[in-house]
């Protein structure tokens, strides 16, 4: 580290208890405005456990410094000086590893509630699920006020009717072989699943929000419950004859045991694959957009004309990727729902 760029001095213990501070050695040229932005970031990272590590440090703002590339060095606990890129400060982590694109998926307890060892906190994931739910309910409430809306629908009513009609056609088409009344018993559950996933995925596209379905616990929980429900429906409707689903027609007898085992494994894998498909698509998409926008931002902040012009490349790729992400969000909700209908069809009419 070059030792001719001291901007400030001294290390004293902070006197105010709750605020944690970070020590910085700043290069000459940083403006005071950037350092105020830094203080807000300190407030933001107060809630992450890493603040315990840095509680012995503090910020002094002595002179203006310039921003340069990030060199993050954490070797000596009491003798650390950080260079920092102030304009990319929001992305910087105070941990020792490099900032990873997976940090947008971290779950922060907003209202910590712990009963013994059980973790009941109200996390940001719960907050965004509540937000999704309230959005859906508000939309449907305002459309069906006063007993059901207009005959010639306005735009919002069209949207709700579109979703309803779409899932209705899905259910009618896929689950064959039953009378209409029986089929429609499955409709509410599938409609709710589709609407919830659609709004959750779309809400994750809002900048700085949290994608609920980008955690495999949530999607696997949903897919496992639906899988168990479909199996129960299959047993209910066909009794023990439901197990004949595992043996396809026209199989010679010596081959049968292996085939049954394979079919059983493939059947149980459906639950996993349903959840993981949604989770992987959401997580990979968001991480990719984060990485590319990191490139675009870094290029924007290097004080060089060539980089500024070359920044158009990553910016357009981010634009295209965001469009793709919107398409994938809607598509994955549709695929989840249609696969549920197909599995239901399999369980009811054993092929």
């Amino acid at each position: 580290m070059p030792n001719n760029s001291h901007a400030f001095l001294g290390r004293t213990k902070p006197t105010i208890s709750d605020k944690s501070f970070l020590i910085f050695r700043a290069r000459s040229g940083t403006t005071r405005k950037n350092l105020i932005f830094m203080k807000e970031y300190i407030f933001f990272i107060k809630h992450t456990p890493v603040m315990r590590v840095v509680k012995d440090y503090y910020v002094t703002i002595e002179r203006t410094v310039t921003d340069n590339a990030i060199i993050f060095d954490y070797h000596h606990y009491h003798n650390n000086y950080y260079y920092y890129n102030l304009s990319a400060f929001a992305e910087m982590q105070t941990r020792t590893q490099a900032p990873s694109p997976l940090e947008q998926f971290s779950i922060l307890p907003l209202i910590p509630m712990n009963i013994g060892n059980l973790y009941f906190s109200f996390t940001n994931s719960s907050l965004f699920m509540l937000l999704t739910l309230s959005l859906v309910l508000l939309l449907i409430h305002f459309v069906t006020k006063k007993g059901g809306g207009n005959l010639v629908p306005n735009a919002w009513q069209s949207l709700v009717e579109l979703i309803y009609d779409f899932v209705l056609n899905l259910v009618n088409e896929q689950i064959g072989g039953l009378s209409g009344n029986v089929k429609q018993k499955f409709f509410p559950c599938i409609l709710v699943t589709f609407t919830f996933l659609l709004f959750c995925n779309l809400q994750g596209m809002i900048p700085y929000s949290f994608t609920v379905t980008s955690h495999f616990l949530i999607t696997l929980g949903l897919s496992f419950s639906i899988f168990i429900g479909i199996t129960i429906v299959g047993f209910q409707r066909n009794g023990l004859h439901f197990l004949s689903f595992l043996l396809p027609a026209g199989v010679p007898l010596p081959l049968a045991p292996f085939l049954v085992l394979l079919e059983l494994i493939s059947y149980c894998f459906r639950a996993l694959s349903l959840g993981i498909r949604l989770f992987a698509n959401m997580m990979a998409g968001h991480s990719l957009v984060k990485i590319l926008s990191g490139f675009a931002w870094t290029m924007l902040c290097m004080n060089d004309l060539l980089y500024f012009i070359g920044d158009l490349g990553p910016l357009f790729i981010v634009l295209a990727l965001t469009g793709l992400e919107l398409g994938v969000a809607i598509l994955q909700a549709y695929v989840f729902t249609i696969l549920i209908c197909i599995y239901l069809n399999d369980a009811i009419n054993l092929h």
Partner: protein
Amino acid sequence: MLEGAKLIGAGAATIASAGAAIGIGNVLSSSIHSVARNPSLAKQSFGYAILGFALTEAIASFAPMMAFLISSVFRSKNQRKKVEVS
């Protein structure tokens, strides 16, 4: 050395996109063939094509997921020790 191995692993995980590309090309090629044979079923064929595309793309997403897993989950001993200081 762990850093180098992590980078190699993350790069190797990206090879899986080759299979995904072939699969998606296959699905859409079949869709084009079927629409050419019977243009009146274009809408239905398109629906199946999109379904097939989404299912295949799901496997393509496993590759970046594994790459991120490899590059972010494994931490060397030094890093782990520093983070625990508090």
